[in-house]
């Protein structure tokens, strides 16, 4: 349990999304699939937050077999470009992995392939700049 120390981490790309009450185009985002998502808390969207969620995000279409991690499960997400790490609890379903199969971003020799997790702005900004939209990450339980 913790940052970058579990036996079977997932690697991929991370991004950020807004949820809960918000301004701008995401003002209709709502509390996410779990109902308690807010931009100010360290939370995340996971493609396999439920069976129904899995059938929408379809990470298996890109060859990923992601574990079922429901609402409230805490992940430790490491920014592979800096080594910074943050914890975030599952609060929504996403990203739509299958729409971006094959997408890849690298930092040096470390790469992340396919959209794997979306963080709330507060969680993402703790380990990266919001203006870098996609970054390679490591995800531990």
């Amino acid at each position, binding site marked *: 349990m913790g940052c970058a120390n579990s036996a079977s981490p997932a690697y991929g790309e991370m991004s950020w999304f807004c949820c809960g009450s918000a301004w701008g185009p995401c003002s*209709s985002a*709502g509390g996410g699939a779990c109902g308690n998502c807010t931009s100010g808390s360290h939370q995340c969207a996971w493609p396999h937050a439920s069976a129904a969620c899995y059938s929408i995000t379809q990470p298996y279409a890109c060859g990923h077999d992601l574990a079922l991690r429901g609402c409230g499960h805490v992940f430790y997400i490491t*920014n592979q470009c*800096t*080594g*910074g790490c943050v914890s975030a609890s599952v609060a929504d379903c996403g990203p739509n992995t299958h729409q971006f199969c094959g997408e890849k971003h690298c930092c040096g020799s470390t790469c992340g392939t396919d959209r794997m997790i979306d963080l709330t702005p507060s969680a993402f900004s703790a380990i990266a*700049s*919001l203006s*870098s939209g996609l970054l390679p990450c490591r995800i531990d339980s």
Partner: protein
Amino acid sequence: MTVLTAAQPLLLAGVFVVSARVKLTGRDARRRAAGTALARLVGKDRAPLAYGVVGAVEAAAAVLLLAGGIPGVPHRIGAVASVALAAGFLGYLLYARLFAPDSSCGCVSARQSPITWRSYARAGVLLAAALAAVSAGTAWPAVLAGRPYAAVGVVVVEGVAVLLLSPEADERWLFPLRRLKTRIRPHPLAGLAYDLPLASTLRQLEASDAYRQVGTRLRSDVLEYWDEGEWRIVSYRADADATAVFAVPRLRYDPGAVRVAVVDDPEPVPV
């Protein structure tokens, strides 16, 4: 006029078959029913079941419409069922508009699509077709046998109209058409006069060893940047009252060449 009204059961049956097929055979589509306005109407848990029931009713209506000419089956029974269904759809859309404006329509395809004026226009067309079918004096097989070209023509024209009014079908015809346009004519975004975007510099910076060395010490996003010959210089606020300054190759991609210095800097002052 006879052809116009008597051919309507064919159009309606076609639309109902397509719509019912998605609702009954698409497992994903039924799961996705939770995201449609239907969920608001009957509750999230019951939405997939209700979605399937609507599909079954549509399939039954299609059968009645097509059976309309067979001896022993009143030829208007399918049309009357269609009026009820089409009116129900229109009512559903109005309800969704009022009480679940952000939800998907869940109408005739597995594709998520929002409720727009096109959804109303399509429901309106179906209702008009159903009313016309009720007013028809003859059953469709008789008209099809008597004036086949006119009957097929009516169904094709109306079918195309329904297709044009279906946001769910955009990916099948509208997007390829728009893609074709950008192939034939110059891409609208080609040849823009552009400098090297800062985003390009920052992506190269993030990929560098230099950035990884000091990454967790950075406190701010980019403070300032400027060009210096073949370099683009980018500065960040770092911890311990310092400024981190990077030099990134400006005109080539070579993250290995990125340089960094962390410079002592006094406490920032209010702007």
